[in-house]
């Protein structure tokens, strides 16, 4: 038996009403990436240019002559998000425009794998761009193939044999923080306040900023379309996807949400892509998740636990509790 996550309704007073992305897009219902794009643009505003390498979004945004984005979109070659965003930024600067934000929006394939060389180079040069990886943990556009972001044990069309993918997921946070970039954050669309805070913060900064977004994918993960938000909640609580930030080249590291953990089984057992796992396999995943959590959070400041005690009932943290006094608009 797995527990149902409890999501408590609360007005999202912090969400801008401007709908920049969305109308007519072609994402599957419940697509975590589409929800994330909608939220991201709300935080970033209309003075944004999106650079889109090949990924689900090449389709989601719409075929010629349509576009669901209320901002300019440059579709670029799969492996070039970092370089293409740098090119747009340089040309804007040449035109005297230092204000417009250039956001590369790439899938995990376009980030961890084929796009990594251009990404790493753009980070090293501290290009003045925001690079977002929406991570659905496989090549979804081409029909669910394994990527460097696919977690251990997951079924994909190219890891069909038991027990699924043999290797653990590449540690993007560690790799990118090691680039000494001004800002790295992880975000999950379930945690709307935290998500918006991070995109706003990134918008206000200069230099290379990166946000790694947790993006459930119903067909790819073999879950119901209505599970997206719940899965985000479980992933964070089971410590599969820690919400954190690293600033000033990793000097300041902060864990944004530190709930009492749930067993990783609660997260795995809800998804078809893990349904073949035996208890021993789940244990192995748990061990990997625990190890990564220790590594990742060892140097992180932790959020203050409410009044010093662990809360009996975990609630979605509000913006103030996450951040202390509001600093960013």
């Amino acid at each position, binding site marked *: 038996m797995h527990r149902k996550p409890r999501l408590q309704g609360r007005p999202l007073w912090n969400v801008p009403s401007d709908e920049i992305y969305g109308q007519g897009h072609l994402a599957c219902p419940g697509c975590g990436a589409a929800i994330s794009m909608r939220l991201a643009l709300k935080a970033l505003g209309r003075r944004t240019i999106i650079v889109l390498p090949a990924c689900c979004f090449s389709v989601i945004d719409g075929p010629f002559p349509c*576009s669901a984005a*209320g901002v300019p979109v440059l579709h670029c070659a799969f492996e070039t998000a970092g370089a293409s965003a740098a090119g747009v930024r340089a040309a804007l600067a040449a035109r005297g425009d230092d204000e417009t934000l250039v956001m590369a929006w790439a899938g995990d394939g376009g980030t961890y794998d084929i796009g990594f060389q251009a990404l790493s180079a753009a980070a090293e040069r501290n290009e003045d761009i925001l690079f977002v990886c929406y991570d659905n943990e496989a090549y979804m556009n081409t029909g669910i193939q394994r990527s460097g972001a696919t977690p251990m044990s997951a079924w994909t069309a190219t890891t069909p044999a038991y027990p699924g993918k043999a290797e653990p997921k590449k540690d993007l946070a560690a790799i990118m923080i090691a680039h000494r970039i001004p800002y790295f954050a992880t975000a999950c669309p379930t945690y709307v306040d935290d998500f918006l805070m991070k995109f706003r913060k990134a918008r206000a900064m200069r230099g290379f900023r990166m946000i790694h977004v947790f993006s459930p994918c119903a067909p790819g993960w073999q879950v119901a379309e209505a599970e997206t938000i719940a899965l985000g909640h479980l992933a964070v609580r089971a410590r599969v996807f820690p919400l954190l930030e690293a600033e000033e080249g990793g000097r300041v590291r902060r864990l944004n949400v530190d709930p009492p953990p749930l067993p990783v089984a609660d997260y795995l057992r809800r998804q078809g892509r893990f349904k073949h796992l035996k208890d021993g396999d789940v244990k192995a995943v748990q061990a990997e998740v625990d190890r990564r959590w220790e590594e990742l959070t060892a140097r992180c400041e932790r959020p203050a636990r409410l009044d010093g005690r662990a809360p009996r009932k975990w609630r979605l943290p509000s913006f103030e509790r996450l951040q202390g006094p509001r600093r960013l608009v």
Partner: protein
Amino acid sequence: MPRRELLTGNEAVAHAVALADAKVIGIYPITPQTTIIEKICDLAAKKVFQPRIIHVESEHSAMATVIAASYTGVRAFTATSAQGLALMHELLHWAGGGRLPVVLANVNRAMAPGWSIWTDQNDSLSQRDTGWMQFYCESAQEVLDSLLLAFRVSERVMIPSMVVLDAFVLSHTSEPVEMPDAETVAEFLPEYRAPFRLDVEKPCSFGALLRPQHYQEIRVQLQDAMEAAVAEIEASDELWKKLTGRGWGVVAGYRTEDADILFVTSATVASTARAVADRLREEGIKVGVVKVRVFRPFPFAAIRRALAGRRLAVVFDRNISYGHHGIFAQEIKSALYGVSGAPPLACFVGGLGGRDVTRETIETTLRSALAKSNGRLFAWI
């Protein structure tokens, strides 16, 4: 008075890019191109011009950045050779299909394996079908002029241009070059005004999914633009001639008026061939030289005009399409198909991987072609 300077082919590229005031330049080293980007950095450091130089991690990213910059509405440039150009291949299609007036200088270098840093044309000719114009140059002056022409024509027809120069023979050889003054350049190459660009005031998407009902239509437009580009190149060349006294043509003839035999080639081999033509004419053999300067769009009409009615045309290619033969020869043959008075062709391939093409090489080529007259279609030299 225009200045004269002693420049290598590569320095001529850099000076032309400065004269064109390119705004974004993606740079990555590869022999024998490297001195282009070094010179560009030097000119930028001396504030001769003030481009945004992006120190990318590969030629692939170099092309990606200049494509993105061009989509953002500024003049953009990069340079490469051989392996670098091959690495760019996918992106060359993005620039061609995207109708972007990006300009690239390619220093011809033989493709590995084994490693070769010396000249031949297989690198650039392998990119024939990517939707780029290609200009093959013979002198540092021609390189400088062609770069400016490439920017102008590209921006008028919205097709990218590749200006090609031979490794070392041209890239690293110094020659006196007449530098046009700023006013002349400004008249010839006005500031780039992009007909479309990424603009937050007018949001559009570029490069989106093209369904079958649209894809071909857009490619038809590219082909039409390519065909129209021949006239645009000729008109721009005329204008440059008016401004500076120098015109290069799409095809350049030498002592062709009364020639029975034409030696047809491209790039620096043409200079050597002219000396050979002079020598053979002393023996009474009426040889002329035809240099094909523009490879894409292919100058069908000019080739037909130059070749029809001659006794023999000897085509010398510093490149090969394995399983067929020299690439210029194939193109010339296709241009002559069904043309009355088309001469027989003798096709030679030589000078690969930087092997010297000397006067003797060319003389041997011509004499053996004459001896066999119409005997053999293809031979190595």
